């Protein structure tokens, strides 16, 4: 009994419920509701309802109102809804179809015919839901694989440079917060949550090119000479060269973000950054966001060549242009989520 699929019959007339119940009880577990409100309660979060047979004319809450609510909650995508009608208003039926009903059952019922039609649709939905589940599972698996690969690359940096190892992980969470804020505040930079997640994951690789920077430069306690700085700057381009060699191991979107961030996270809004000297919105918004997150984390962390600045001092240095010029909108968003960034940064450093 517990393995049987469920059918929910919604009709205010008991006779109609009993007849439908009789038709389907052999193959399905039957749920009955005498009005729309009761039906919605029964549907709730029940994932095992295979179909809803819904009367249109009912007191309290009619069939269309139930359907509208199911549609709003995305339920009509998951379970087929059949409208029960005595061939009433064409307009109502049309609205029902628009709201996601799959078919119409006309009264009086024709048992065998009805059984075949409904069972066929339930079977189709079952196959479709199963396929969607498999695809979702595979996408998840692929996404986890991507994450592992990205994290493996980040660990390579950790071996070379203890600072960067922790730094890259912090950058990811700061990027996520700041990118989310920029997206929320500015229509032109709006992005979906999924894309923001990809950008945050890609930001982990922004310094991957540092594996090619010589130890004596990477870990030099004092200020770099002009020549040394030129070599240091090469990590942006070298990072892209590394990524170019492994495009097939990453999902396309993730690869594109990683490549762009790797190359352009040291560009500046006024064109005085490197390696390409891009300016303004020629620099992608995600590279701009990672730049701010990168500078903030570098300032608030201890390095072989400097002590850590306080959060307040770092914010001051970023906003007054001491670390180069940033997009005013990104700075505005940075200001709006500064407390969240500070909390997250402190927590990351503690752990």
């Amino acid at each position: 009994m517990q393995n049987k699929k469920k059918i929910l019959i919604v009709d205010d007339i008991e006779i109609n419920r009993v007849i439908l119940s009789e038709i389907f009880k052999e193959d399905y577990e039957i749920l009955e509701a005498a009005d729309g409100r009761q039906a919605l309660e029964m549907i709730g979060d029940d994932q095992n309802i295979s179909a809803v047979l819904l009367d249109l004319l009912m007191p309290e809450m009619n069939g269309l109102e139930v359907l509208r609510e199911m549609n709003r909650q995305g339920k009509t995508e998951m379970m087929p809804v059949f409208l029960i009608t005595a061939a009433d208003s064409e307009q109502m039926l049309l609205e029902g179809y628009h709201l996601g009903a799959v078919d119409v059952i006309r009264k009086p019922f024709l048992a065998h015919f009805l059984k075949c039609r409904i069972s066929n649709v339930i079977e189709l939905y079952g196959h479709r839901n199963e396929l969607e589940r498999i695809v979702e599972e595979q996408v998840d698996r692929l996404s986890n694989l991507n994450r592992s690969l990205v994290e493996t690359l980040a660990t390579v940096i950790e071996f070379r440079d203890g600072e960067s190892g922790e730094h890259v992980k912090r950058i990811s969470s700061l990027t996520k917060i700041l990118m989310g804020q920029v997206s929320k505040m500015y229509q032109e930079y709006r992005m979906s949550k999924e894309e923001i997640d990809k950008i945050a994951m890609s930001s982990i690789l922004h310094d991957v090119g540092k594996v090619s920077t010589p130890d004596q430069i990477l870990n030099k306690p004092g200020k770099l000479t002009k020549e040394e700085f030129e070599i240091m700057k090469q990590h942006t381009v070298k990072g892209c060269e590394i990524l170019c060699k492994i495009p097939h191991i990453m999902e396309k979107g993730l690869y594109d973000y990683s490549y762009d961030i790797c190359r352009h996270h040291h560009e500046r809004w006024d064109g005085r950054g490197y390696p390409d000297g891009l300016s303004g919105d020629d620099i992608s918004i995600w590279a701009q966001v990672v730049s701010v997150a990168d500078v903030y984390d570098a300032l608030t962390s201890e390095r072989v060549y400097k002590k850590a600045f306080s959060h307040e001092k770092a914010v001051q240095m970023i906003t007054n242009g001491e670390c180069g010029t940033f997009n005013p909108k990104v700075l505005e968003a940075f200001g709006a989520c500064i407390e969240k960034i500070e909390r997250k940064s402190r927590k990351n450093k503690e752990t």
Partner: protein
Amino acid sequence: MGVFMGLLEELRELGVNTDEGVQRLMGNASLYERMLGTFTKLMNETSIEIEEFDRDDCTELIEKTHALKGASGNLSVTPVYDAYTEIVNLLRRGNPGEAKALFEKVLPIQTEIVQCIERHK
């Protein structure tokens, strides 16, 4: 006649398509008889007064006649179903006068069917 006849036989005499009704319940005749009991309950509960056809607002009347049409149709109580199908159509088309006349015409048949079912309870 009814005393010595079974319920379904007697209803058949009154124009009820009992074979179709039983078939609709997957051939379960005893369930059909039980449902006929529920049908009489519904008929008695859904009392329609003749004056209701004279009201300006027929919304409630349409709902009631519609419910009776659905239930009688599903049990193949054909004379009642045919009459209420037409009554609902007439009311929807804004013709309560003709609907009232039809209601008065079906009332004795309807009563006879309900009484027949109740006699066999």
